[in-house]
Each structure stands twice: as C-alpha cells, then as structure tokens.
C-alpha cells in the first residue's frame, strides 16, 4: 500500500480526491475547534487524522462529510466545492448509528433505501455487503442481538453498500474491545485492499493509526491545526499482522508520533 505513490508518481489525472482548504471552525460560544487547516487526501490512500482529544479531528471529519458547516474555508471533492453530504462520501459512525427497530439487512440497505432503490435490488446489494464484512447468517438479527464489533460491521457494510469513493470513519473501533479491534483492523485492510477506496480515518490510538494507514496527519489541540504529516513505510505485502507490528518501521513510527504527541501534552500542562 505504501508503494502506491511510487507506482503513480505525480499522475495529473488522479489528484487528491478530497481537498480541504483553509478550514476553520468556531463553535457558537467561541470555542475555536479548527484553524487554517489545509490538507489533501490522495485518491486510493488511507489517511488517518490523529491527535489528542479536543484537537478537532472528529470535527474535521464531519466537515469533510458535510455534516458540519465550517466557519471558514472550503472542502472540494474531485475539484468541486461541496456544502453538504454527497453520494461520493460514506460515513462510518463511532456509535454505529444503527436503527434499533430494523434488521441487519434493512440497516445495511438503509443508504440505498434513502436513494429510492427498489427493495429487491437494494437487498441484493446489501446481502453481498453483509457477506463481505463476515455477517452472513445475521441478516434478520436486530442490532441489540449483536456484539459491539458486529454492530460496527453493520455500519461498515452500510457504508460499503452505497459504493462511495471516499469512506469516512470516525473512531470506528473505539467502542469495541481490544481483541475485536485488532481482528477488525486486519479485516478492514483486507477488505479495503480489494475496494480501491480513499479512506479518512479518525482515531486516538497511535498503533491503530500506524497499522492501518498510509499517511498520518497529526493535529495539535486548541485550536486544531495540522502539525505534522507522517508517511508510514511499512512492508505489508505477504506479511502477517504480527510481522507487520514487529517491523522496525512500525515501532519507530509509533515512537516518533508518541514523542510529538507528548510535546502537545506537555504544552497543555504548562498552559493550565
């Protein structure tokens, strides 16, 4: 995955699918969540927004999704400014956001239902998506019957269903336990390997960020600004998850990011 930029060096036909320019966000009440954020998200890459809580990473993701309106700046998808949610972006929610009264099948098909596709067609697409995320056999279960990890698979399947080019994931694994989380990370990589999607992923876990992404954007807190962009140089091809985690490149990147984050925390203590 990290070799992708080398395969397509500065190809003008595949520029960044998502561009964020001069984004600022001031919440009513005067809290400055983001200030002057400029970022490009290259097509087909997995980029993580990483930072301590309160750095505005979820705010930035929701602005890209069109769920929040920034107070300054602009988001462009494929070069066109956007002002709301669109079919080229799909969101995976931290709290899953599943309809408790609907079965897994209907939940997964919900994005298509909103588009007005007919029932047989959308259920067929949803079915394929359910199998893809490993939930085959649970089509008629209700969310309360599923574990946290399974619920998030439903959320992921729903986002895959609408076939958006950009997948926006807001701390998708924060509500599931560590074991499930690791398995889920591996599966996510395997799944996305076949999908050629651009993924923007928000997390506060350094290891998760390094493990899953090609590029890590470090945001500094209060107000949220882009502090550093780290490119991970992991050898993923033909390696198991454990081998990837034991690479020097993995460990060094984790350490490097931790040193940067530690500075934020130290700064914050001094200002308190």
């Amino acid at each position, binding site marked *: 995955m990290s070799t992708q930029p080398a395969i397509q060096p500065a190809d003008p036909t595949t520029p960044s699918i998502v561009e964020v320019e001069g984004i600022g966000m001031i919440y009513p009440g005067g809290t400055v969540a983001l200030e002057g954020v400029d970022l490009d998200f290259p097509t087909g890459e997995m980029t993580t927004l990483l930072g301590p809580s309160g750095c505005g990473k979820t705010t930035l993701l929701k602005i890209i*999704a*069109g*769920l929040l309106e920034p107070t300054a700046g602009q988001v462009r998808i494929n070069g066109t400014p956007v002002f709301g*949610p*669109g*079919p080229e*972006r*799909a*969101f995976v*929610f931290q*709290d899953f*956001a599943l*309809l*408790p*009264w609907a079965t897994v099948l209907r939940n997964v098909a*919900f*994005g298509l*239902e*909103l*588009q007005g596709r007919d029932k047989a067609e959308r259920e067929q697409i949803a079915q394929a998506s359910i199998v893809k995320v490993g939930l085959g056999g649970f089509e008629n279960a*209700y*969310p*309360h*019957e599923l574990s946290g990890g399974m619920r998030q698979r439903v959320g992921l399947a*729903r986002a895959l269903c*609408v076939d958006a080019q950009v997948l926006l994931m807001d701390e998708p694994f924060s509500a599931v336990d560590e074991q499930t989380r690791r398995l889920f990370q591996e599966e996510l990589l395997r799944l996305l390997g076949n999908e050629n999607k651009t993924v923007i992923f928000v997390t506060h876990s350094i290891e998760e960020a390094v493990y899953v992404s090609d590029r890590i954007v470090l945001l500094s807190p209060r107000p949220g600004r882009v502090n550093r962009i780290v490119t991970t140089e992991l050898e993923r091809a033909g390696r198991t998850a454990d081998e990837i985690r034991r690479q020097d490149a993995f460990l060094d990147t984790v350490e490097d990011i931790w040193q940067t984050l530690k500075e934020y925390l130290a700064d914050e203590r001094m200002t308190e």
Partner: protein
Amino acid sequence: MPISVAFPTFIETMTALFQMFIDGRIFRAYGDTLQPLLVGVGISGVFGVIFGVTMGLSRGFQWMGEPIFIVMQAAPMAALIPLVTFVYGIGLAAKVCSVIILAAPIIVLNAYKAVRNANPSLIQMCHSFQGTRLQQIVKVIIPDASPMIFAGLRLGVAAGFIGVILAELLITPTGVGDLITYHRSVAEYADMYAAVFSIMLFAAVTVGLLERAEIAFFRPERKKRKDA
C-alpha cells in the same frame, strides 16, 4: 359477613356484576360511556400526535403550543368541566370535550418531547446518506419517537377514562357514571362497586392492548425480545 353495608363482600360485588351482564345493564351503560370516550380519545390521539410531532419539528409551533399544553397538563382540568357545560350544554359534545381536555395535553406533550429527543446520531446518519427531510421524519424520527408517543397515548387513554367518568358524574348521569350514581343513591353498594370494578378492569385491559398493538406494528425488535 360485610364490615358495613357500604362495604359489600367480594362475592356480593361479583354476583352483582354477573347480574348486570345477565340483564344487559352493563352493555347499555358501556354503550353510552364508550361514545364520548372513543370520539374524545380518537380526536385527542390523532390531532394530539400530529400537533405534538409538529411542535417537536418546528420551533414556531413549539413556541405557540408548549405554554398552552403545559398549563393544561399542570392545571386540574376537571375543575373546568362545569364551564364546559356552559358552552356545550349537557349532551355528547360536552362529554367529548371533557375527555379531550384531560387526554390531549399529555398526548401532545409526550409526542413533542419524543420527537425533540429523537437520537441525534441517527438523524445525522440519515443526513449523511442524503436522506431528505421527509425521509428523516418518516424513516428515523417517528419510529425512534414511537415508544414515547405510545406511552403518551396510553397515559392519554387512561386520562380519557377519568374525563368520561367525571363528565358522567358531574354533567349528566349516563352510562357507567349513571350506574355508579344511581346505585349509590339507592344504597345498592354491591352494584355500585361492580360498576366501579368493571370500569377499572376495562381501562386496564384497553391500555394493555394498546401496548401490544404498538409492539406489533412499530417495534418488531421488542416483540422478538419478548418472545426470546
């Protein structure tokens, strides 16, 4: 042996109730009582839910409606029943009105609060998949609010029972209210208690059936949970 003539034994009361079924008095009484009750609860239910949902969705309607219904819910509306007779006389309209003033506020306020407290995360999810405002209301907000709307309807129906019995006791004695007043006045206490017992049972069963209907039509996942 009864403690006093005013407290007949359980057996005596049940015998009186059975007698009422045999000679058909109870059916005639319920025929009279159910009319204002059904009309009143029907109007309160349909318009109350519509108005409450609208209040939940629109700040303007909330501004207009909330103070009125909060006052109506907090004030002892039964005190207004004599006033109702000045306007609507002593017929069916007055009794329907009594049911409505007791049942509507709680139905409206519950529906309003249910919609206002609909899960914001689900609303955001609907928005992110480009759901229209109408889809958002029909497919997310109302189903999410339905348990609380139905709780309001159950409370409203219970309040409607209070309204209709109060009307029958205070305006003109008809139906079950008549059974109660008449048998009290001629000291047939077993019959009086039989009428009181029947209306309590009837109200409880009605409210219970409403809950069943809600689960069957709106919350399939709760049905499954109950079966399991």
